[in-house]
C-alpha cells in the first residue's frame, strides 16, 4: 500500500505558510504611509477593482490597512509567543529541577494565572503599563506561558528518572551538562510545536484587546482597531470593513494553527512514522 510521505507534505506546507506570512509582513512594511491616508472623495466605497477590500468611512484603503494591521499582528504574535515560551521553558525547568518549595510556588502561580480569564488579565496588565504596544506585549506574554510550562515540567520530571540520565549522572556529568545534552534535545521538538501553537492565541488576544480599546492606540492600523471602528458603520450597511479584515485575520490564524499541528504530528514519535 502506498502512503503519502507526511514529511514532504509538511515541508511543502511549512514553506508555503512561511512564504505567505513573510509576504504579508513585508507588504505591510513596504506599503507607503500615503496609501493609508484618507480621502473623503473615496470614503465608504464597497469593494471594487481599485480597492479590493473597499475603503472605510474616512476614505482609507482597507486592503492596505489590513495588510499593515496583519503585519503588526504578526510582530505581536512572534514577540509575545517567543517571550511567553521563554518564560515557560525557564519556569518549567526550575519547577522540575529545583527544590520542592520552588515547584509548589510555580504550581501555585500557574493555577492562579490560569484561573483568571486571559482577556481580563491582559486588560489589567496592558492598562497598568499605559496601553500601547509594550503593555499589550507584556500582558500577552505574561498570560500565555502556563500550559507550556506545565508540559515542560512534566517532560523534565519524566526524563530525569530515565536510566540514561541516571547513567550520565553516575559517570560524573553535572546537572547543567545533562540539561544541555540530554534534556534540551528532547524538549526541543515539543517546545517548538508549543511555540507555534501559542502564536494564534497571541494574535487573537491582541486583536480582541485592541478591539475593546485597551490595546494598541487608534492611529495604529491594527486589525482590532479596524474592527472596532467598523462597528460604528455596520448599521449603515458598511459590512466590508468588518468582514474582510476579520476574515484575513482568521486566515492567518488558521494557517498558523495548521502549521503547529503538522509540526506536532511529525515530531511526536507515536505518529512520526505514519
Amino acid at each position, binding site marked *: 500500500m502506498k502512503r503519502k510521505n507526511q514529511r514532504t507534505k509538511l515541508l511543502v506546507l511549512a514553506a508555503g505558510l512561511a512564504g505567505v506570512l513573510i509576504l504579508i509582513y513585508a507588504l505591510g512594511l513596504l506599503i507607503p504611509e500615503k496609501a493609508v491616508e484618507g480621502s473623503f472623495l473615496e470614503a465608504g466605497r464597497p469593494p471594487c477593482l481599485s480597492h479590493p477590500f473597499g475603503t472605510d468611512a474616512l476614505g482609507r484603503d482597507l486592503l492596505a490597512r489590513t495588510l499593515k494591521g496583519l503585519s503588526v499582528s504578526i510582530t505581536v504574535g512572534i514577540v509575545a509567543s517567543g517571550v511567553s515560551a521563554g518564560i515557560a521553558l525557564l519556569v518549567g525547568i526550575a519547577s522540575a529541577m529545583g527544590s520542592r518549595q520552588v515547584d509548589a510556588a510555580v504550581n501555585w502561580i500557574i493555577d492562579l494565572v490560569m484561573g483568571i480569564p486571559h482577556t481580563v488579565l491582559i486588560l489589567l496588565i496592558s492598562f497598568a503599563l499605559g496601553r500601547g504596544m509594550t503593555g499589550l506585549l507584556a500582558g500577552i506574554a505574561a498570560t500565555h506561558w502556563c500550559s507550556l510550562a506545565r508540559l515542560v515540567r512534566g517532560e523534565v520530571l519524566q526524563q530525569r528518572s530515565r*536510566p*540514561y540520565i*541516571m*547513567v550520565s549522572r*553516575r*559517570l*560524573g556529568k*553535572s546537572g547543567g551538562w545533562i540539561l544541555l545534552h*540530554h534534556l534540551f*534535545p528532547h524538549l526541543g521538538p515539543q517546545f517548538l510545536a508549543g511555540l507555534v501553537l501559542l502564536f494564534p492565541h497571541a494574535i487573537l488576544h491582541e486583536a480582541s484587546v485592541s478591539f475593546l480599546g485597551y490595546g494598541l492606540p487608534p492611529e495604529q492600523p491594527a486589525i482590532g482597531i479596524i474592527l472596532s471602528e467598523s462597528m460604528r458603520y455596520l448599521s449603515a450597511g458598511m459590512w466590508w470593513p468588518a468582514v474582510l479584515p476579520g476574515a484575513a485575520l482568521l486566515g492567518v490564524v488558521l494557517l498558523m494553527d495548521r502549521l503547529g499541528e503538522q509540526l506536532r504530528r511529525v515530531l511526536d514519535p507515536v505518529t512520526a512514522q505514519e
Partner: protein
Amino acid sequence: MALEAKNVFFRYTRKSPWVLEDCSLTIERGECVAVTGPSGYGKTTLARLLAGWQTPDKGEILADGKPLPTRGPCPVQLICQHPQEAINPRWKLRKVLEESGKLQEDRLGEFGIERAWLDRFAGELSGGELQRFCVARALLSGADYLVCDEISTMLDGITQAQIWETVLKEAKKRNLGIAVITHNFHLAKKLGSRRIDLTAR
C-alpha cells in the same frame, strides 16, 4: 578493598513494605559474585542501591570503605537489563561512548563494536549491539566495580557468551569487583566464584 552493603533497608514510599530489609553483602576487588533470586526479591533495587542510583533509607553502601560520591564519576557502575533505556535515543552512539571520556577507537574491537555503528542511532541497532555499548561505556569509565543487572537476559546465547567474555577479560586485567545479578541458575554457577541467594534471608 571491597564494595559493601551494610544493613541496608529500602522502600519506595513511607507506607510501602520494605523491598530490602537489613541486607548486607561484600564484593571484594577481583571477585565475581552471583546474586540470585526470583523476581520480587529486590534484585534490581539492590543493583540500583549498590551503584548509587538510589540511596538506602537505612544502612550504607561503601566502596573501598568510603560512601559513594554524590558528584563526579562513581567507582561503581551499573549495567541494566534493557540497553534501549540506558542509551539516549536521540544520540549517535559515538556520543554515548564519549560520555565516559575520550573515545579510544583502537579499543572498540575488544568490546565487539564495529566502527560503523558509532554514527548510528540507538534505534538502528539490535539489543545485543546496544548492550555492548553499555558494557564498553561502563568499563571505559574507569570504575572499580561493576553491577550487572540481568545484562544478558534478553539476548541470545551467543551474544550472552560474547558479552561475558568481554567483561571477564577486562575484569581480570583491571582486578574489578563484579556483582552478577541474575535469575539464571546456570549463568550464576558459571560466572560466580560464590553465590548470594536473596531468598535465603
